[in-house]
């Protein structure tokens, strides 16, 4: 009823090419944003922030980052965990070296450092493709983890080899450390997440994004029509790594507070983010959110259902969790190989035609 173009006249090119051309969609988007910024901070508690919202927002940023590289530019990467570690360690070194600087700056700089590292490891992508590139990025993953384990300078020579986030502030509010309020940490991550999504969305609609997609669809054809593969691939690696680095920095400093590189940023993390992107939908910003939500929220929801409501033993629930999440992944990939984003797209198409589908 509400979900149609009818009566919504676009008189400028700008309004015609906006992200949400349908009025209902647009208002829904504003309502979600307003709810996230104006309502959630007042009702959120420690559990919701630390167990649900922070991991969701942080993984969403990582998934957006990987989606740019894999979904939009077609370069498969298994180095996400390693790049997140770069972001985390860069943030740690910056936090401890310049304690008085705002965390906003540190997180952005950590993203910048990761972008540089990403470009470096992206160089082989000019010569190798597909599975071979995946192996090359896998090497990055192992090399980076080995480096952060091996060189004590990265963890400030601490006895345990761990990095711990000291208390740091943004505009006088503590965002790291145990005394940070749930609402501040949530808002801090939300701001990064929303800005990342906006930037990613607009990049992928512009020249840069179109050159990425041209490379993804057929690199030789793209080169012939004048897309510079060097610039396109390396810019995809840089932008992607920037987002992944930001998420790594937030993951360490805001969410966990103490990190051990081998455990927090292992190959499992790379796979987790890759699964988020695949399940959410390759080449879709909404898909990054959907995938992150699916893989972060579903296990928690299953645990709450099994242990807290049904009172089952924790190990049975933990095993069921693996089975159910795994089965759902297979189910979604069979029913909709293009991910949750495609389901969403189809639902929207159907809604537009409802109640007279043709």
């Amino acid at each position, binding site marked *: 009823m509400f979900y149609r173009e009818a009566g919504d006249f676009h008189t400028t090119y700008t309004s015609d090419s906006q992200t949400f051309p349908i009025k209902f969609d647009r208002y829904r988007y504003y309502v979600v944003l307003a709810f996230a910024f104006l309502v959630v901070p007042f009702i959120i508690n*420690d*559990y919701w922030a*630390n*167990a649900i919202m922070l*991991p969701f927002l942080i993984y969403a940023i990582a998934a957006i980052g990987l989606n740019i590289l894999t979904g939009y530019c077609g370069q498969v990467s298994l180095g996400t965990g390693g790049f997140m570690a770069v972001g985390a360690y860069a943030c740690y070194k910056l936090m401890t070296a310049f304690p008085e600087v705002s965390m906003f700056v540190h997180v952005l700089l950590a993203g910048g450092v990761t972008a540089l590292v990403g470009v470096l490891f992206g160089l082989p992508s000019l010569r190798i493709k597909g599975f071979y590139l995946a192996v090359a990025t896998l090497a990055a993953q192992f090399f980076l983890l080995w480096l952060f*384990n091996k060189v004590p300078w990265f963890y400030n020579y601490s*006895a*345990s*080899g*761990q990095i*711990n986030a*000291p*208390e740091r502030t943004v505009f006088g509010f503590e965002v790291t*450390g*145990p*005394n940070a309020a749930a609402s501040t940490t949530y808002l801090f991550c939300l701001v990064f997440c929303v800005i990342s999504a906006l930037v990613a969305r607009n990049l992928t609609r512009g020249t840069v994004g179109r050159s990425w997609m041209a490379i993804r669809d057929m690199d030789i054809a793209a080169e012939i029509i004048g897309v510079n593969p060097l610039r396109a691939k390396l810019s995809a690696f840089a932008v992607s790594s920037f987002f992944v680095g930001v998420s790594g920095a937030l993951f360490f400093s805001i*969410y*966990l*507070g*103490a*990190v*051990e590189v*081998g*455990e*927090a940023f*292992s190959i499992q993390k790379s796979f987790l983010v890759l699964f988020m992107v695949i399940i959410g939908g390759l080449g879709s910003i909404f898909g990054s959110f959907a995938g992150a939500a699916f893989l972060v929220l579903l296990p*928690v929801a299953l*645990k709450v259902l099994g*242990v807290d409501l049904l009172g089952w*033993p*924790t*190990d049975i*629930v*933990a*095993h069921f969790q*693996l089975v159910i999440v795994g089965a759902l992944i297979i189910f979604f990939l069979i029913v909709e190989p293009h991910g949750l984003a495609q389901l969403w797209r189809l639902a929207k198409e159907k809604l537009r035609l409802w109640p007279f589908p043709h």
Partner: protein
Amino acid sequence: MKMKLTTLALGAALAAGPALADLTFPDLSYRTGAYAAGGIPFSDGYSDYFTLLNERDGGIGGVKTRVIECETAYNTEKGVECYEATKGENPLVYQPLSTGITYQLIPKVSADGIPMHTMGYGRTSAANGDTFKWVFNYPANYWNGASGAINHILDINDDDISGKKIALVYHNSAFGKEPIRTLEELAKKHGFELSLLPVDHPGQEQKSQWLQIRRDRPDYVIMYGWGVMNQVAIQEAANIRFPMENFIGIWWSGAEIDVLPAGDKANGYKALSLTAVGDDFPVYDDLRKYVLETGKAAGNGDQLGTVPYNRGLYAAMLAAEAAKTAQEIHGTPDINAAMMRDGMEALELTEEKMEALGMAGFGPTFSVSCRNHGGPGLVGVTQWDASAKQWNLISEFAPTDMDVIQPLIDADSAAYAAENNLESRCE
């Protein structure tokens, strides 16, 4: 009819009356993943002891105990989720059984005012209670362990190990890296040569490490391993025919399940211990009577008497004794986390107390103080007898080299205090 009404009324009054809140002990366990082999028996022992207290004594000081279990899979992210999910239920003490999760939780419990007990694991410098108000790691820590292993090697070699080669095979994490500094200091003091061989999580792949041991031929190998890593290491050591009596594991690397897969070849393998071994204690009679036979045992109820089960039992006993002490200090059976902390800091474990609990000789006697949250640091050595399939304690619980350890603890805790602007709080 009248009587029926009265009983009904009485029943209703009892049910609705202001019942004392349960004493809540969260159990951050892991029954899944690569470390479940150690996590399951520990958690079973931990909750069985509280079940025993409820069934036999009606709780602690008349208040029932409650164990909330939360699965962490030895994963720090899930550990944080478990902590946040349980901290609203008035928990008295956290025992995460993971050094990684311990590092996550130290700042959190300090800010939230909930004590944490990391028995024989976690951050070693938490032994300095002056800095770490909310964290306890009695009765012994990883650096005691390192020194205990070296002391044992000294014993065998008539106190002279200069020029010997000792290799450390360790889990490449905060847990495995803990003893390195101590061992380096001890290497300087005793003149032995230390080589370091890290094993990455989860530890199933150790071919290259043991190849190096085969090539370098160290006189002794010390292992800081956990979970599946232990079994693999012992199997690999057997494969290269490394003499088992020269292979010493930390107390987390010495369970039945670690040595059984290697069969007879594991005979003679040594592991350090915090507690006695076996089930020859009166407390086990009660456990069988009140917990096992009534079907209230945690898990499958098949872990009684194993090394990690005993360790869980011991951890629960220390927590229960600290709760009792807290009830005495504050004169109320209904204690909260802050009172529990006072109880832990004033905990005193004597022969008589252990005897009364049916656990005489189960662990060392000790007392905790404001400055010393680490206990006496007494370490025993156990050895595996493959034919009898049992661990035997082959040494006394002996003191460790505090001349080396104490300065390290002081330095590390001073660094933490400076990082967090902490003042000295003890007299």
